[in-house]
């Protein structure tokens, strides 16, 4: 055993040392181990390993001496190796195992590492070329886009220096808090023709949501010709959902094919906490259901919020309540799938949720504190439930706890005045308008 250990220590020496003295050291160990003790010789070999690697590298022979002796051929590159011997065939298996393990570790790190630290120099903004040779930028965490016409003719990339100045200037526009370097301040602004497209609003406050539900806005197509025309229902709805608001760059309440195509670039800019994904709150959700410390309740509320809105449900492909980095990359295709009439754009009828489901959400998100789908008598007694108390009590039918299904049935019964079986926005408006007015 000690002889094996000593042989192993000899193998740890640099090649040039063990090739010259290894055999002699083994022989001396065999002769001397009995007489003066193996421990002293093992300790001496261990110290020798460290000494040779740390202080004796100047005894290493010049690499490639054999190659220089005449094996080179003109014009053919020569590769030097630290070990001149051909590896043993048996060394291939452990080599393959180590290589596979390193590859698997790197792949896992790339797939699950999330956002790298900023110290690694990750770009602070995202850009994508537009058909007219302008570039759309989204600043990470800043969440607004800027379009700038790149200097140079269409279809050809400008010179590196000018292009770098262009990018630096637009980056400064996207990130106004970032200190400018001297080279950036000297950028030729006259050649940039930058223009702000539209700021993505921060998530609306709870008061704003309560005071301007989108179904109270004027129906699409009924806008007056007055200068201050009220926003359409679709435009109001889009304003409440950050992903749609970011995409609707011309604020017309319609997502065009070009706007949809930018989704993969624009959506990552909404990731305010830089965790590599969009939560329901980052998509615009607000309310007590998202502020509770009950993690399970917040998870249920997030999943319900994402499922309620067709666009968010399309983006959140795995229905976990988040739009992951992978889902953001596939977002343009996911949104295009909502285009039921294949006209290349998403309009009100394709974007807005079912009115009845939105009405149920509106009540549940304010009353069902733990979002378990059951509204207890205690929850009905809270101040937030006051505008809907008669609706809730009628849904409960005298019982102490009512389910969301009972709430939905009662709301349908009250709203569907023409008994068509479908609750329209106008019908929902008649039920909710006085109650929402009371909460202002």
């Amino acid at each position: 055993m000690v002889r094996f250990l000593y042989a192993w220590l000899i193998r740890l020496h640099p090649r040039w040392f063990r090739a010259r003295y290894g055999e002699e050291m083994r022989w001396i160990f065999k002769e001397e181990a009995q007489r003066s003790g193996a421990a002293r010789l093992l300790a001496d070999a261990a110290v020798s390993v460290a000494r040779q690697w740390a202080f004796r590298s100047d005894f290493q022979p010049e690499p490639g001496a054999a190659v220089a002796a005449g094996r080179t051929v003109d014009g053919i590159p020569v590769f030097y190796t630290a070990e001149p011997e051909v590896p043993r065939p048996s060394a291939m298996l452990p080599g393959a195992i180590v290589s596979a393990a390193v590859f698997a570790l790197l792949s896992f790190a790339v797939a699950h590492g999330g956002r790298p630290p900023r110290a690694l120099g990750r770009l602070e903004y995202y850009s994508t070329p537009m058909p007219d040779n302008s570039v759309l930028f989204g600043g990470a965490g800043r969440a607004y886009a800027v379009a700038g016409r790149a200097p140079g003719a269409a279809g050809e990339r400008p010179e590196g220096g000018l292009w770098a100045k262009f990018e630096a200037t637009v980056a400064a526009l996207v990130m106004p808090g970032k200190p400018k370097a001297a080279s950036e301040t000297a950028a030729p602004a006259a050649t940039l023709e930058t223009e702000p497209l539209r700021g993505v609003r921060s998530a609306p406050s709870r008061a704003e949501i309560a005071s301007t539900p989108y179904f109270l806005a004027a129906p699409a197509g009924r806008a007056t010709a007055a200068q201050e025309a009220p926003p359409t229902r679709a435009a109001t709805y889009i304003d409440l959902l950050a992903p749609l608001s970011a995409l609707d760059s011309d604020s017309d309440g319609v997502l065009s094919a070009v706007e949809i195509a930018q989704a993969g670039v624009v959506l990552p800019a909404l990731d305010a906490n830089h965790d590599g994904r969009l939560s329901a709150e980052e998509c615009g959700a607000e309310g007590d259901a998202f502020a509770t410390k009950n993690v399970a309740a917040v998870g249920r509320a997030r999943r319900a919020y994402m499922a309620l809105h067709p666009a968010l449900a399309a983006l959140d492909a795995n229905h976990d309540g988040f739009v992951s980095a992978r889902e953001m990359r596939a977002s343009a295709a996911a949104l295009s799938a909502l285009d039921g009439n294949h006209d290349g754009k998403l309009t009100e009828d394709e974007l807005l949720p079912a009115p009845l489901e939105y009405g149920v959400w509106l009540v549940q998100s304010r009353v069902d504190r733990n979002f378990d789908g059951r509204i207890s008598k205690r929850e009905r007694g809270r101040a937030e439930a006051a505008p809907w108390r008669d609706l809730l009590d009628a849904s409960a039918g005298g019982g102490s706890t009512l389910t969301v299904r009972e709430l939905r049935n009662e709301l349908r019964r009250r709203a569907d005045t023409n008994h068509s079986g479908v609750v329209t926005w106008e019908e929902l408006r008649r039920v909710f308008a006085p109650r929402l007015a009371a909460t202002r």
Partner: protein
Amino acid sequence: MKKPPEEFLPLAPAALHILLALAGGDLHGYGIMQQVAAHSEGKYRLGPGTLYDNLQRMTAQGLVRDGLRGAEDEDPRRRYYRLNALGRAVLAAEVARLERVLREARVHLQAAAPRRA
């Protein structure tokens, strides 16, 4: 151009003992270890790692020549080492240096010895 012997001084104890052992004739590694132990009456024992590290360095410096084979009936792993002329000169210079040190030490020790009344 060879360096003068004085530039190798002072020698480390292991190097001094190895050169002293080789001064008596060619020896293989194990023989050097035994000779060193005998010179120091068993108080200084070289390990193989220390021995060959010093031999490697002294061979590169031209103090020792290695690679000599023993008699045909000897174990082929036994490779003999021989003191070169430069090595012998360095050993002589080191011994002279040690004599001076010894002389100085004696003078100082006698001067510092307590006087009897």
